[in-house]
């Protein structure tokens, strides 16, 4: 069946407006601070909204009523500030009668899902990787009609707060499978995944003195996995690569490090830059890859 495409402006629905009209959305999209302010992650937020618009799900965002979940304060030991933030947000969400929250940030996800209930905030909380997986399973997203990832190498970097913290390992991988790309696993993946170095409020401080930055160690592993660089992998992980070697200057250009967390995004992109590979390896969030494969970017 032929398709006609058109560029359509999106007016992102605000929860306050819906409430004023007496409507309640199916999901509340919790954007998070990185999704709202970080220039790189704003593109992920926009990609995810394009997917929401494309599948026609009823959603809303809090806009300026949203505030930090308190995650970085809590991990840094400032429990008081965390609870102030938590109770303010819970009051906002409960005020609107929100039942279901979807977010693209594993830290927001973990905090709202696990730590808000004891403070009076009981919601169904879904990370966008699980949400995208559901859309794919329902056939609402097919990853066709846009950019092709066929044959390109992609490796997924597990976010600690999605993986070990909440046991979500398969959803992001099933999302990537729909791209028909060449998926490669790093040795340190899933339960053994190596942190990007940003968690526990490290994102906002300089690292302690050491030999290396964590994100560089992780970027080296991701790049060597994508390149099939057996020597580097042997040194980093004690295993040899099973992927054919991509020599420098060949078709390395299409390789992607896939992430599902704003802080992993920053750390991995910085790590790739540190290894001077930003020309041929890109770091993308799941939502960006899907929106691009589905041809939703306008």
């Amino acid at each position, binding site marked *: 069946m032929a398709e006609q495409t058109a*560029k359509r402006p999106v007016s992102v629905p605000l929860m306050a407006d819906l409430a004023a009209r007496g409507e309640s959305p199916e999901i509340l999209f919790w*954007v998070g*601070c990185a999704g709202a302010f970080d220039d790189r992650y704003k593109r992920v937020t926009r990609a995810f909204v394009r997917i929401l618009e494309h599948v026609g799900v009823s959603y809303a965002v809090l806009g300026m009523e949203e505030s930090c979940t308190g995650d970085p304060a809590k991990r840094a*030991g*400032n429990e008081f500030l965390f609870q102030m933030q938590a109770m303010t947000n819970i009051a906002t969400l409960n005020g609107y009668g929100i039942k279901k929250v979807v977010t693209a940030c594993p830290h927001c996800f*973990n905090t709202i899902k696990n730590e808000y209930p004891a403070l009076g905030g009981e919601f169904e909380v879904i990370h966008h990787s699980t949400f995208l997986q559901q859309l794919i399973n329902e056939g609402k997203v097919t990853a066709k009609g846009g950019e092709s990832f066929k044959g390109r190498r992609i490796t997924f970097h597990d976010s600690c707060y999605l993986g070990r913290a909440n046991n979500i390992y398969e959803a992001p991988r099933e999302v990537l499978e729909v791209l028909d790309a060449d998926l490669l696993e790093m040795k340190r993946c899933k339960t053994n995944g190596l942190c990007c170095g940003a968690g526990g409020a490290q994102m906002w*401080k300089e690292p302690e003195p050491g030999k290396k930055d964590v994100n560089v160690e992780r970027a080296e592993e991701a790049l060597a996995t994508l390149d099939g660089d057996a020597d580097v992998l042997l040194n980093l992980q004690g295993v040899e690569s099973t992927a054919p070697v991509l020599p420098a200057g060949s078709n390395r250009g299409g390789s992607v490090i896939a992430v599902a967390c704003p802080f992993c995004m920053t750390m991995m992109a910085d790590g790739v830059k540190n290894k001077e590979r930003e020309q041929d390896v890109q770091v993308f969030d799941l939502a960006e890859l899907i929106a691009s494969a589905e041809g939703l*970017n*306008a």
Partner: protein
Amino acid sequence: MHFSIQNILFLLVAVAGFGLFAWQARKIRANILVGRDRDMSGHVNERLWKTLLVAFGQQKMFKRLTPAFLHLIVYIGFIVINIEVIEIMVDGLFGTHRFLQFLGPLYSALTGTNEVLGALVVLAVVAFWWRRNVGVVRRFTGPELRAWPKLDANVILYVEVILMVALFTMNAADLKLHQLEGKALPGAFPISSLLTGLFPDNLTALAVLERVGWWAHIVGILCFLNYLPSSKHFHIIMAFPNVFYSRLVPQGQFSNVDSITHEVKAMMDPSYQVPAPATNPDGSAAAPTPFGAKDVDDLAWTNLLNAYSCTECGRCTSVCPANLTGKLLSPRKIIMDTRDRVEEKYNSPLIFHPSLYGPEAKHNPQEQLDKENHTLLRGYVTPEELWACTTCNACVEACPVNINPLESIIEMRRFLVLEESAAPNSLNVMFSNIENNGAPWAFSPSDRFNWADDLFVTEKTPVTA
């Protein structure tokens, strides 16, 4: 049955051995209970299931196959050979000889299995010794594994070999004695039958050797039992309660401090009734508990149970992103520090005394240590270690007995931030950004919705011919 002075002697030795252990166990129990209360009741089925899988079943050991198999041999050897200890106890008390022989073919199966396992244990212990001392495994190095812990690890291996040698001496001498007397010894002895050639042909000497082996085995076990509370080998007991009381909530879920919840609720709603503060049994107001942990008694009792369950294998440290990249943080050291500190401040076991091995011994560099006040925070664990943690839970995931170093790290961070306002300056900036802007960065809250400006989507509509 030949009741003799030996049996009375054995009774005395056994009572002394178990009595001494009970006395030490009480001290350790008291140490663990100095920790703060935490309600770990309920979910008994889930906890038993977890204990069955992780403690009895060694599930998490199998993340690394080589040590898992070696450990499995020693573990099964320990369990099966201890069935024979029951026999030794009965024989020793009542003057019987190989009391379990009434089991018939089952006794042959038991003794045969014991012998094979005993030999495998010796081989596994040699492999362990090699891995630990010839330096093929990086996690057996590190500043916290000097002096006592290094000695302790080897002592355990030597004792295990001595126990096995005693077992084989007893069996082989007994076997040869019976062979020379033309009698059949009940049981099967596949290994000892290979060793009889090494033993003398003198009947008296064989009888003495059998007794020496028997006594060395049981006295060795009783001594080892009393060595456990001073050793990382205590994990053979503590792993079970530790796994039983492990956290059942998602690893990403950190505790919410209840006293802070009351304060915040009172701030947001002036009509909120804060519960009355705790009182001492005599009715006077109890001293307020600090936020977070400065010393071991500020941690929960489960954190102290963790410390007694640690076998210092270093799997936590070997996967810690901070440690891997050369930072000072080592989750294993935090757990070892906790145990050393609780024994310095409260009860110490029989052999190990913390003064043998103070906080300085395993901290490098030492400049940041508070050498006058040996509190857990600053006296043992420095803020630099704590601030290097990414809270990634890799250490928690890696621990074969479900120890949670992250909880202790967060409790100490809480003390630094809430009691001492001693966070790194960049984190204080982040805190004030959250307070003022509702975001950890210095952006204006009014710009929070700007991401939605000029947003377009490609709309696809099917074209019907």
